[in-house]
């Protein structure tokens, strides 16, 4: 078990790291230093931070399974997940304010017509109930099993987010590839783990039967 002071230090560092991308944007906006296309900078920074945080959140379970000594990582998952939702919301707000200009009709048209926006909005809507049920109270109220089942939606949200990215870039542009491969590995690690532990268990059963 980790010392309390180490834990607090790590928690503080995680907060700082998660706030860093936002801090840079705010600093850039205040000093009028967001580059030639500030709107695009804000959109890309909030979007890619969401994907990065979602990826780190999804890495926690597979990494913990590597060794029981890594169990403490679970204490960071909620924080990272909530920050992912926070950046997803900023990303959505950027679209609403700087692209749609708060025009409800143009947003409705975009969601209906443009599949990359449909996928992005779907990803945010899938994250919303997860953020809403992130409190201890909600976990108790739902019960661990139901809570767990609900939070499986994060896989779908991650898939929607990556599709959103691919559909947004020009055909032929391969920038989303890296994050796609990493997320695919993290998602496939889960069924792989189930298969492997089933196989290990059946071997054990077979051996004890002999």
């Amino acid at each position, binding site marked *: 078990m980790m010392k309390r002071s180490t834990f607090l230090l790590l928690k503080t560092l995680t907060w700082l790291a998660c706030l860093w991308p936002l801090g840079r944007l705010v600093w850039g*906006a205040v000093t*009028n230093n*967001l*580059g*030639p*296309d*500030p*709107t*695009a900078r*804000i959109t890309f920074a909030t979007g890619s931070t969401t994907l990065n945080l979602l990826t780190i959140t999804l890495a926690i379970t597979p990494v913990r399974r590597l060794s029981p000594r890594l169990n403490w990582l679970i204490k960071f998952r909620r924080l990272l997940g909530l920050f992912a939702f926070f950046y997803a919301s900023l990303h959505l707000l950027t679209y609403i304010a*700087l692209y749609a*200009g708060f025009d409800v009709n*143009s947003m409705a048209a*975009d969601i209906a*017509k*443009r*599949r*990359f926006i449909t996928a992005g909005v779907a990803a945010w809507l899938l994250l919303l109930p997860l953020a809403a049920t992130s409190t201890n109270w909600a976990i108790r109220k739902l019960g661990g099993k139901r809570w767990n089942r609900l939070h499986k939606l994060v896989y779908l949200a991650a898939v929607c987010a990556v599709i959103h990215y691919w*559909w*947004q870039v*020009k*055909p*032929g*542009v*391969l*920038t989303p590839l890296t994050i796609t491969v990493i997320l695919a590995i993290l998602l496939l690690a889960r069924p792989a783990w189930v298969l492997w532990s089933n196989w290990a268990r059946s071997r054990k059963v077979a051996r004890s039967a002999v």
Partner: protein
Amino acid sequence: MLIGKPSDIPSSAITPKDRYLNRRRFLRGAAAAGAVALGAERVAELFEPRMGASAGTKLDTVKSPLTTTGEQLTSLEDLTHYNNFYEFGVNKGDPAKNAGGLPTRPWTVKVDGKVKAPKTFDIDALLKLHPLEDRVYRHRCVEAWSMVVPWVGYSLSEFINQCEPLSSAKYVQFLSYYDKHVEKWTYESSIAWPYSEGLRMDEAMHPLALLTFGLYGEVLPNQNGAPVRVVVPWKYGFKSAKSIVAVRFLDKEPTTTWNDLAPNEYGFYSNVNPNVDHPRWSQKTERRIGQPFYAQRKTTLLFNGYADQVASLYNGMNLKKYF
């Protein structure tokens, strides 16, 4: 003065602009000691002048009635650090970092296809073919951002007349420089290089279509398509091919890069048109580069605001079908 022996280049033409601007600022505040140091720098430069016409070299230009007025120019810094030039990387800042190796001298443009006889033009001959004009144009990218650019060049028609196309030439194709040893970033996208673009003959002959050699009165920086490119201000930016090495006159529509890659997204014509959405975003508005985030949005104009001059090229054409 473009090309010359070291001795006949005035030092004002060989000192990069940012350096002499800095120098003025420095002079204003500094005392005689500073001035002495400066003098030494100037003398040192006389012994090691820039050879040839590289970016930053002043061009002799004349005024043009075809220039766009009433727009705030995008800064040189933004024009040279926000580029789509995928041969040098897919991010906007990549070409400024990576295009340094583009060999802009010697440079020739090969002309063939439906012409009286194939020809090759040297870049220095092209620069002298017609007086260079200052032409400010709005520049609208299909990605919904826009700039205002003070280009230097002359009407493409002046060049085309020298190519002596046959009457069977209905289209003109522009091919960009391609060498994967120089342009080491082409793998970042799945484009079939070299970059190819094209225009209908009457579009290419329109006086607004510009054969372009410079920016802000100076030779084009590499990332902006040095040493010669076309600029077609009423079309989305990707129609304006950079770093052109070959021009082909054809009797049918050429294969063009983005149209070939995604015909539902990028039409052959690709005239700026707020009424025809890109499948993935609206083209009704644009983001002006270099403005703060809350002031970037602008209304996009039909033919990028050049409708009075060019709309007649498309009389009777359904612009939604031929987008």
